[in-house]
């Protein structure tokens, strides 16, 4: 079989992202958004981008070790969905988690210090980039095993339904994780038990280095939910307002007790899979085109300017603010000491039983 034919059926995905076809078809009504909301989304997305750029820098300096997966390009996904969430709602995601943490209100200092493996990090330096949590902000990780967070997200929803507290949970996973068996085991039970969970498929087109065409039999991953009776939709993930709108619909569905909902958010990561990925599996032009034509932050910036919600100077002031926050986080992450050696043997058991000594 000719390869072109082989992958032809879903090569559309990327096209409609890059050509903006999707955007034209589902352009959100700008009238529905207030100036304050737009400015808020702009700030939030910019914070994530600048934070990630700084993390990349610190990685290059050897201050961050191991695996580090940057969220640059995908910012509209978490910022749009957090805009649809309420206090007490829960979220869980994969190892590409820095954006989710910042968007749900976790302190950039604590996140950055965890990346550098310091005492001031959210996990006292013991979790790292991929394993971070905040009970206070209802952020349940940060999971390093592809797909494992999906049943956990449904389990959070299970607990909420058990308690009858009206909360919903967001279970984020990528197009790569969407091929894990436990995702479908979870779809089945979530539908069967009508769990208030939103499955957010962050489709950034590449499962590590393997494109969707080469890894996934369906062009529309969210449609797989139909087999379980779970409603869902595809969303332009480069448009924060489209994401928010879809998120609000999904949240309303879950909160009304109608069971799970799937959002396949079509997005794009500008950087490699991790810091050590040379990204040879796609062209520089492809990335460049996305950055130039579809960037989520640029889009809101334009809306702010053309709608006369903000002046260039005001936006510059915001940029400066964000830069200061990120620099402060970076400084904190360098100054915070490494965890005390006694931390090696704490937090293994909730009741601190003695460990085996080698």
């Amino acid at each position, binding site marked *: 079989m000719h390869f072109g034919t082989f992958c032809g059926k879903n090569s559309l995905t990327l096209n409609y992202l890059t050509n903006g076809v999707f955007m034209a078809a589902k352009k959100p009504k700008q009238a529905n958004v207030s100036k304050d909301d737009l400015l808020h989304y702009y700030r939030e997305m910019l914070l994530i981008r600048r934070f990630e750029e700084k993390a990349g820098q610190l990685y290059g300096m050897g201050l961050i070790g191991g695996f580090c997966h940057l969220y640059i390009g995908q910012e509209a996904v978490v910022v749009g969905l957090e805009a649809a969430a309420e206090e007490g709602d829960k979220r869980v995601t994969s190892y590409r988690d820095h954006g989710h943490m910042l968007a749900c209100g976790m302190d950039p200092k604590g996140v950055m210090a965890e990346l550098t493996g310091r005492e001031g990090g959210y*996990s006292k330096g013991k979790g790292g980039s991929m394993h971070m949590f905040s009970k206070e902000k209802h952020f*349940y990780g940060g999971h390093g095993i592809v797909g494992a967070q999906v*049943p956990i997200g449904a389990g959070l929803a299970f607990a909420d339904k*058990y308690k009858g507290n009206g909360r919903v949970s967001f279970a984020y996973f990528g197009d790569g994780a969407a091929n894990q068996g436990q995702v479908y*085991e*979870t779809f089945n039970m979530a539908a069967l038990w009508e769990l208030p969970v939103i499955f957010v498929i962050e489709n950034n087109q590449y499962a590590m280095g393997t494109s969707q065409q080469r890894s996934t039999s369906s062009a529309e991953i969210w449609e797989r939910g139909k087999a379980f009776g779970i409603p869902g939709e595809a969303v332009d993930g480069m448009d924060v307002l489209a994401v928010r709108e879809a998120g609000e619909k999904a949240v309303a569905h879950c909160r009304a007790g109608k069971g799970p909902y799937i959002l396949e958010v079509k997005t794009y990561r500008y950087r490699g899979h991790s810091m050590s990925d040379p990204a040879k599996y796609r062209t520089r032009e492809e990335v460049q085109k996305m950055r130039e034509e579809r960037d989520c932050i640029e889009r809101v910036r334009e809306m702010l300017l053309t709608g006369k919600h903000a002046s260039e100077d005001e936006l510059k002031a915001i940029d400066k603010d964000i830069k200061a926050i990120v620099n402060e986080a970076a400084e904190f992450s360098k100054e915070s000491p490494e965890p005390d050696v006694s931390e090696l043997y704490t*937090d293994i058991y909730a009741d601190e039983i003695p460990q*085996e000594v080698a």
Partner: protein
Amino acid sequence: MATEILMPALSPTMEEGTLAKWLVKEGDTVASGDIMAEIETDKATMEFEAVDEGVIGKILIAEGTEGVKVNTPIAVLLEDGESADDVADAKPAAAQTDTDEPAAAAPAAAVPVKPKVVEEALPEGTKMKTQTVREALRDAMAEEMRIDEDVYLMGEEVAEYQGAYKVSQGLLDEFGAKRVIDTPITEHGFTGIAVGAAFGGLKPIVEFMTFNFAMQAIDQIINSAAKTLYMSGGQMGAPMVFRGPNGAAARVGAQHSQDYAAWYASIPGLKVVQPYSAADAKGLLKSAIRDPNPVVFLENEILYGQTFEVPDMDDYTVPLGKARIWREGDDITLVSFGIGMKYALEAADKLAAEGVAAEVIDLRTIRPMDHDTVIESVKKTNRCVTIEEGFPVCSIGNHLSAVLMEQAFDYLDAPVINCTGKDVPMPYAANLEKLALVTTDEVIEAANKVLYR
């Protein structure tokens, strides 16, 4: 020719049953497929069908008879033209009874010692009741569910079927479908959901139909449940219990017969329990449900139907991490856990007849392991044999041997011997299966070796 109808084996572990009811009487004609009797096994009441046609010539075992061994003739089926008189000499066979193998002849000089059985320390006047391990486990869950709304049970067939091994019998009726939840056959998924529910503030009990199936879910048990407390810097963990039968049952072959004690015991963040007696099953399960950590609770299908004395108390708990000394003795220490205790205790009895006083320790909790109790015992006896059903490589016994070598080297008068299951996948053939499992004779042989007898 008249044929004998034999007491059937209706489950892999059934050795005897109750002939609850005859649905035919002498002189009745039966055809293949007709239901002749109701037989109670350790798990359920089953209907017993005729496989041949004929006339019931004689009923040999009256209804209501308990403890009828598998393969005991229970009735005689006549073919056309035969009369009941033809089988007059078919004696009503009494239920066969086990005859203990004669104890190995003691060496001439040996003077038998009386085993020093150690009773558990209980409040004065505590009454005991006789219970199966199965009932004790059920009571433990029910008691904990009564006092804590956040405790719930999920797993395959735990609710309407009343438990694949009847451990959860009656729980659905008492606690309802919200708290006793039948899952689809999807171990990886429902284990992950339970871990998420624990993160979300509940205290799930996850029943695996057997721990063999938990291998499908082991990523969630280890990577998600066991490690999160550490990875979150102590912010959140998974207070939950993973329980179900573990180890060999009977004749279920390689994929259904494995002891996972050593696998789970190697994971920091997990507690691992493997009880032997019904009292410990109850007391330890209650403690496991209350424990703020993920606990892997390894049960045994063969032990489910065995009876023990259980303290009849409102709230009987056994602390995790404490071994129990079942017998005191000065000559040798036998350390085991779970069904391995059966062989350890049998071996101790036979050794006693030969004049050897064995101290028998039931670890009960595999992690955290009560090294101190074992070390103290070895300081006294200077010899040790470990007994378990798991594979020999990287076994619990291997670990204990290392601990003893490091911490009690000067007290050892002989190398520690680990009696384990054999280094083979479990065979199906009855004779090979017996060979693959650890036996009482092997324990005695090992004991004699370390005693240089």
